[in-house]
Structure formats: C-alpha cells, structure tokens
C-alpha cells in the first residue's frame, strides 16, 4: 500500500503547538537560529541553548532539539519520495501521450505517399492498393443472416466452458471461473455470444436510462452496474473480459449497462494489440470474430443517464455536445471514431473534382485507416472550406474519404489521373505512359446508395467528442491535440451542459489517475479509472463509484496488492518488511520501469541527441555541462519532463559538472541492443518507428496471418525510409530483411520483427517479465500491463 501523500499540515493544531512554545524561546531565538545555521553539531548548540534559556515546557530541552532534527530529516525523506512518485507518473503520462501522437506521424506519412509516390510497376500498384483499400464491412442484413457459428464444430476433447442460450446466471459465473483457470472459450461459443449480444444491443437506445429510485411494487431495486468503456486493448485478457461482460449483460439485461469507449473500435484495436490477441487465440476463426466484434462495438450505447441527473460517458463533452442529437443518431453508422466517411464530404468531393484544382488531389484524399488529426498545423490534410466554430476552438474539421476502386466512372477516374499526372510532374517523376493502366486512388462514386450508410459530419463529431475528450482546468474548449480527437473542455463547458440538461454530475473515465479517481470542475466532473497498476505494478490505484440514494458518489479504491508476490522468497524470509518498506520498493520498481522506458526513448533518438550535444560543445572537447544535457534532451524529445531532476538516474557517468556525451550514448546503446548484426543506426530508426511500422505491417497483412512477404517488407521499408529522408541503400534493406527472416522461408513474422527491435528485457529479473510491458512489447506496441491479481485491499472513501 503506497503511503498516503505527504501533506504539510498548515495551518493546524501543530501550528498552534509551535506558537505556544515559541514565546518562551524568543529571548534566545536569535542565538538558537544562528547556531542552527552555523553549526549543526547538536552538542554545541545544546550547550548554547542550555546556557541561554530558562527552564521550558517539557522536561528535556535536549530531547526537544533532537526530536526536531529527527522530524526534520524524516519529513525531507518523505518529500523526496513524493517527488519521485510524481516524476515517475509524469514520465508514464508523457510517454503515453507521445505514443498517441505517433498516430499523427503515420497520417503524415501516408499523405506524403499520396502526394509524391508513383508506383512504377504492377506489383507496387497492387501493394499500394492493398494499403489503401478497406475491407468491406458486412451490411446489417448480411450479418443477421450469418448465424455461421452453428456450422462450427466443438471437438470432443474441448475442455473449456460450454455456453447455451438463453444464458443463465450459473453459466455466467461458470465462465468467470473457467477464465480464472486460464481456459479459453471456443470460437463457436464466442461467435454465438457475440450474435446474442448484438441482438440485445440493437434494441438499446443510444443513451441508456437507469433508475435508482424505488418502484411502487418492489421495495428495493436490483443493483445496477455501468461499465464505462475501454474494455479491451490493455493486457492480455481482453477477449475474456469482453466475454464476461457480454455474458452478464445477457443474463441481467436490466441491470448491466455498457458504454462504448474509444477503444471499442477496430481501428484503435489494430494499433493497440486487441486484434493481435484475438488472432493469436483464435487462429482459424479470428477474422470472423473480429468482424463480429467490430459490429458489436458499433452497437454499444454511447452513454448512460442515471435518474435523469447523472450522465456517464467514456471521454467527456465539448461546447457543441448535443444530447438530443446523440440520442437520435444512428450509432451503428459510427464504425470507427478514427476515420469516418461522411455525407457532406462526398458532396464537396464531387465539386472539387469538377474544378480540377492546381493543389494536390491528396489534399482531399487520404487512406481509410488513418486517425483524424483535428488541428495539427503540420497536417497536410487541411480542408479549404469547413464550418467555423466558436473562437477558442482551434480545430479544423477532419474529413475522410473511403477509398474503393470499384464503381468509379471513367470520367471521374480520368480527372483523378490528370491530378496525379500533375503531381508527378511537380515532383519530378517520370511521366507514366498512357497505355499502362494508371493506378488510381479513387473516392467512392456511388454516393446515392452510400448516403444512407454514412453519418453526417456533425453526428460523427458528436460521438468523437464524447469518446475522446478530456477535462482541463482552464475555461473554454479547445481541440485535444494530444489525443488527436475530441477536445479539452473547461469548467464553463461543464457548467453550461449540466445546466442545459438539468444534470448534477458528469462521470467519465478515459484518463488514468493515481488514486483511481479525481474530481474536477468544482466536483461536477468525476473521473473514474478502474485499472489499478495501469502503467506498471504499483503505479496507481483503481476505483469504482457507487451512487447512493441522493445520487451522492461513494468511491471505493483498491490496489491489486502484489507486494508479497513481487519480492523473492529470499527477501521475504530474510527481512520481514513493513508495508512502508514494501511501498518504497514499489516506488523504486515503478520508477525503474519508467526510467527504462525513458532510456529506450533516448536511445531511439541517439543521432538527434548527438547532433544537439555537438552543437553545445563549442570547443569540440567531447564534454558538455549537465545543464546543456538537459536542454538538449528536451529539445529532441519534447516530453516536458523535469530532466534535471531525473538526470542522476539517467546519467551516471558524469564527472563533476561535465558529461562525456559520446560515451554516454554508447552506454545507452549497449543497454538497448541485443542483436549486433543489425547496424545500430538502422535499428535505432526502426525502433523509433516501430509502432507505426507495426501498424503498417498489420494493415498489409490483411488476412491477419501474422506474416508478410519479404517483398512487402522491402517495399514498405523503402517507402517509409524515403519519406523519413533516410539514406538506406537497397542492399541495406535486403540485408536487413534477410536477417530478420529467421527461418529463411521468404516471410517475415511480424512478431519476430518486432522482437528484433524491441528493448532488451532487463532485469525484471525477479522473473516478472510480464510486469514491465513498456519495456518489452512483444505482443504489440503500446500494450500496458495491467495484470490484476485478486484484489486484496479495499478501502472505502466517502466523498
């Protein structure tokens, strides 16, 4: 259990206590204080003290002084611990957000592709087509017809849980037990469960209504549960969690409520690991399961309203949030909050085609899977005309076009060709001959039929806002550049919304909090985060909230207590440790996770860092000051971290005030690299871009087999490196590809590739390798722990 945060009790009874004593000492205070400064020798000043003061309250003046010293020292120690805790937290947070910004870089990369790349062969064209073509999502009617789970046989030797419908409470509890025993649910049952879940969800409104009040006949209502989104993408058991949630929802349909989170989204899942998890657990039927899940996610309700007074949703709100609109829209149309094909956009697209502008056609086209960046000035995707928002909201209207090469009229194709031609000429590429079939990058033409399937711009934005926004302390509402979606909303936005709809509280999740919960906006907004040990073991508590009779929130906190598990047997035997000591070890451990991740990031930017260091090394001495080190690091990484505070733990090789930066970088590299045969600079680049690369690979790997061909790898890497302006020869790429193809079968296992560039798993050496996923991302980039053991300690916090 982490010690409670150190608080200076000010002003308090202690203050009074001191005041009560002080007057007696006034006459000698000067000499006392000066002795304290000049000499810290207890004996000396005690002597001085004794000679100057009359008898005092308390029998032992020396005891008094000694106590002060001890207390003073102890308080300093606690303050340092608190500071370390805060710094560790900052590291994790800033890195998580930096990871989200990676999405944006990916976006830029593909825009660059569209702008500048000309496929020069059929295979390249096909390859690119695969990148830019979305798999069709089965329409509703198709899905209903497919009760294809029935055709799946469950083998006799299957030892996992069986499900039959309609589900009974016993089935649900048996399911939980089975998962606890690490069994896996058979694909047939998974699909069956998803089928039934979908049937149930379809009947629900966008905003579920829950009532806590008594009904006339029954004295007490059943307890209702609301789960506020983000059920997947973190940890290795997302499938199981979903199954449990859906099962209980089917068993207790009136009491169990699920809200959609931003991770209930197949695009996000591609990046954050859920897709991988499903494919690994369900090799044969994984794809089907993913398809069904995509559908089920779209049918999850968007919010829950309790007694018409408390609004529960995943992210937050914006100054444009319109609950009526949200209730009315067809939520199923919002397939992914990352990307949306919208009606208005296509109309405008048709207009622009006609005008055949000089600007690159890429300005209005973009691959279907890219995240929406709302207000990044660097984003090339800037529409010329869009709705203007209130001042203070600096977002540009995002847009996207679904790309489908089928069904495009010849005329439209021709005009696109002309555009591409112009671009090629601008970029200095050789003109493609007319005879060859041009590679086109086509917007969908049959808008008429498509309209009914698509949400409007406004509808889509409303949903993005409630799933992605975060509260901020400042007034106003501005685009959430960190996440790339939704906005930051201030206290005035909250106030206005609550007033408008006569609400008293907004409960949301979406952000990890050290205590598992946090109030803000004058207690009008409550953030609840239920995954304890989210960043690393011991990093934070989890919490849930109970709404009492007057809808007052009661918070219950917990932390999966791994103290005894963390320590080795020997440690446990040799020193019986106090809770505090264990907590201290935890802080050190969590801190070590954070620092390891940070070192990895530093390594990934070695060349940039070297450049910055050289700039600050005027005499070419090979040395820079520690202050310069801090400034250089911040200018490269942009993490906004307290580098001077962290410096002692990141740099142990400085002498005096100076650092030999080259050897420091070398030491970093030695720590990180495990494969000497891959050139370190290439590796560094690969590592830095690994999460984007992984996403690209997974998109290319459209059958989710986990493999891509050497050719595909080479092509991807070639494109990527030209965008990043890296100087890598074809030979270099070939060598790299071959060295990664460990079994020499012409295919690269994506996971093997990531293995080759990930950080060396250091001493999570007490064998708990899985506890430090930030350092070892074997299962996909960005996947955090959390491994929840049985909850041990639960504390009640009345609010």
């Amino acid at each position, binding site marked *: 259990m982490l*010690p*409670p945060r*150190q*608080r*200076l*009790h*000010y002003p*308090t009874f*202690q203050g009074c*206590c*001191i005041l009560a004593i*002080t007057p007696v000492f006034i006459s000698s205070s000067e000499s006392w204080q000066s002795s304290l*400064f000049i000499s*810290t*020798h*207890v004996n000396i000043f005690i002597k001085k003290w004794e000679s100057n003061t009359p008898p005092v309250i*308390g029998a*032992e003046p020396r*005891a*008094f*002084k*000694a*106590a*002060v*010293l*001890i*207390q*003073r*020292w*102890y*308080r*300093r*120690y*606690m*303050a*340092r611990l*608190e*500071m370390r805790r*805060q710094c560790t937290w*900052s590291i994790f947070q800033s890195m998580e957000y930096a990871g989200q910004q990676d999405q944006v870089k990916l976006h830029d990369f593909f825009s660059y592709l569209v702008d500048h790349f000309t496929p020069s062969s059929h295979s390249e064209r096909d390859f690119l087509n695969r990148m830019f073509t979305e798999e069709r999502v089965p329409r509703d009617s198709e899905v209903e017809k497919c009760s294809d789970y029935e055709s799946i046989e469950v083998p006799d030797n299957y030892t996992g849980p069986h499900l039959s419908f309609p589900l009974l409470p016993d089935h649900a509890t048996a399911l939980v037990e089975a998962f606890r025993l690490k069994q896996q649910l058979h694909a047939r049952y998974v699909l069956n469960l998803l089928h039934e879940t979908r049937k149930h969800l379809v009947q629900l409104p966008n905003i579920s209504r829950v009532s806590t009040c008594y009904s006339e006949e029954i004295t007490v209502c059943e307890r209702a549960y609301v789960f506020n989104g983000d059920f997947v993408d973190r940890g290795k058991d997302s499938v199981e969690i979903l199954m449990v949630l859906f099962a209980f929802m089917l068993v207790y349909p009136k009491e169990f409520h699920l809200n959609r989170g931003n991770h209930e989204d197949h695009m996000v899942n591609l990046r954050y690991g859920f897709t991988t998890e499903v494919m690994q657990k369900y090799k044969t039927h994984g794809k089907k399961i993913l398809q069904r899940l995509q559908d089920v996610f779209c049918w999850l309700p968007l919010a829950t309203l309790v007694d018409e007074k408390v609004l529960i949703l995943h992210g937050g709100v914006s100054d444009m949030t319109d609950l009526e609109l949200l209730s009315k829209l067809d939520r199923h149309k919002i397939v992914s909050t990352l990307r949306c094909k919208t009606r208005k956009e296509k109309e405008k697209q048709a207009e622009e085609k006609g005008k055949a502008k000089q600007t690159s056609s890429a300005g209005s086209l973009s691959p279907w899977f890219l995240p929406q960046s709302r207000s990044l000035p660097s984003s090339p995707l800037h529409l010329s005309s869009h709705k203007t928002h209130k001042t203070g909201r600096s977002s540009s209207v995002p847009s996207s076009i679904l790309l489908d090469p089928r069904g495009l009229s010849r005329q439209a194709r021709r005009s696109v060709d002309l555009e591409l031609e112009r671009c090629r000429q601008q970029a200095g590429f050789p003109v493609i001959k007319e005879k060859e079939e041009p590679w086109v990058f086509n917007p969908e033409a049959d808008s008429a039929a498509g309209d009914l399937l698509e949400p409007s711009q406004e509808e889509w934005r409303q949903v993005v806002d409630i799933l992605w926004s975060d509260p901020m*302390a*400042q007034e106003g509402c501005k685009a959430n550049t960190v996440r790339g979606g939704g906005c930051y909303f201030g206290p005035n936005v909250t106030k206005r919304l609550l007033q408008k709809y006569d609400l008293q509280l907004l409960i949301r999740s979406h952000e990890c909090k050290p205590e598992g919960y946090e109030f803000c906006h004058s207690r009008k907004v409550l953030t609840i985060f239920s995954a304890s040990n989210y960043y690393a073991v011991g990093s934070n508590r989890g919490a849930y909230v109970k709404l009492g009779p007057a809808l007052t929130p009661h918070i219950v906190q917990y932390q999966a207590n791994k103290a005894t598990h963390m320590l080795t047997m020997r440690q446990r035997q040799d*020193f*019986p*440790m*106090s*809770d*505090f*000591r264990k907590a*201290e070890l935890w802080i050190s451990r969590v801190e070590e996770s954070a620092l390891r991740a940070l070192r990895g990031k530093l390594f990934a930017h070695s060349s940039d860092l070297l450049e910055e260091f050289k700039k600050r090394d005027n005499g070419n001495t090979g040395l820079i*000051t520690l*202050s310069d080190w*801090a400034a250089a690091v911040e200018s490269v990484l942009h993490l906004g971290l*307290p580098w*001077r*505070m962290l410096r*002692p733990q990141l740099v142990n090789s400085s002498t*005096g*005030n*100076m650092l030999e930066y080259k050897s420091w970088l070398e030491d970093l590299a030695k720590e990180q690299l495990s494969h000497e045969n891959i050139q370190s600079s290439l590796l560094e680049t690969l590592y830095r871009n690994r999460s984007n690369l992984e996403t690209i690979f997974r998109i290319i790997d459209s059958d989710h087999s986990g493999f891509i061909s050497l050719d595909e790898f080479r092509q991807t890497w070639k494109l990527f490196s030209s965008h990043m302006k890296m100087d890598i020869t074809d030979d270099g790429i070939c060598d790299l590809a071959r060295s990664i193809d460990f079994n020499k079968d012409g295919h690269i296992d994506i996971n093997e590739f990531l293995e080759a560039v990930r950080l060396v798993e250091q001493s999570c050496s007490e064998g708990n390798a899985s506890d430090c996923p930030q350092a070892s991302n074997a299962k996909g980039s960005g996947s955090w722990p959390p491994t929840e053991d049985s909850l041990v300690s639960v504390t009640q916090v009345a609010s």
Partner: protein
Amino acid sequence: MNLDNTTSPNQGGCTAKGMLQGQFVICECLFQSWRQHGRTAGHPSKSALPPSISQLLIFELVVADLQRKIREAFEVFDHELNNTVDVREIGTIIRSLGCCPNEGELHDLIAEVEEEEPTGYIRFEKFLPVMTNILVEKRYRPIPEEILLQAFEVLDPTKRGFLSKEELIKYMTEEGEPFSQEEMEEMLSAAIGPESNFIHYRDYITMMVIDEN
C-alpha cells in the same frame, strides 16, 4: 577569486580547478564576496572587493541553472499548468531541491511566498526569487548522518541502541515539531518490522539515507 586561479586575501581561500567544473565552488565564494559587498554597501569603509565582471557572469550562469532546477521542481506540481501550486506542496518542492528546513522555517518561508490574502496557491513569480536565494545561500542544509545518530542517542541516553515504539511515539508526537498521526504511522511502518516493538535507529538511518547529488 580571480580567473587566473589566484585569490585575493579578502575573498577567502577557495580555488577552482577549471572555470566550468568549479562552477559551484566559484558560486559559493563569489556569493560570499558579493554578499559582503552587498551587505556593506552602506559601509564603504569595509574592504571587500567587488567581483569582476566575468566572475559575475559565471555567477549569473550558475544562478540561471539553479533557477531552471527550481522551475522544474515547481512544474512537477503545477497540475493546472498555470504557474501555481497548492501551498501544501511547497514543502515537498523545497525539500526535493535539497533543502531540509524544519516546520517552523517552512512556515516562515511560506509566509514569504504567499499572497497578501492567502489563496491556498503559491505563484511561481513569488516563489522563484525566494527559492533562488535559499539555494545560492545554501540554507537549510540537510543533516549529516552522524548528527542524526547523535540526535537519536540523545533520546536513548543509556545507549541501548534502540528505542521502544512507545518512546518513539512519545518523542515524535509530543516533542519538537510534533508529527501528525499520519506521519507517525508512516514512520513506524518504515522503522519497525511487523512483529517488532523496537526501533534500531542505526539501521533505520541507513535505510532512509538520501543520496545527495
């Protein structure tokens, strides 16, 4: 202290190995001479020499560095990103910058950096100059281990080598600048094993030593 590493008689006998390496040593000497000069500004009869321009420049650099450190520590607790921190975090910030004031001194410091009408928040603009002085003057230095040991020994006059739980509680909550109940519990949980009733203070000190940088 002169740049050619010689010292003038009235500036104390400090030397530095290299200009940048000895930054903090210079700082200390400079500051002493500067303070002498500043303090005696009204007394021209005092013979302190003002520091040279280059010395002052180095001093400036050093101070700038200190200020960056202060800013970093402050920003860790500036949760609302508006250059203010909760007054209750000031103690943590000051202590993590290497200082070890007692509660009374902290109380005074807070009074110095607070607004006239206390708002519960401390602004960076008020905090920075005060903290800079503290660091430059090296006030509130931490207690060396030996002194701490002696302090415990004062409380253990028969030199048993330990204190009982009751004794520790009594001293920490009734003497000096008493602990709150929370602090007392924390300290106990750090000091003693779950079964024990005695605090072997030597071990305790060793366990809780802060690595000074």
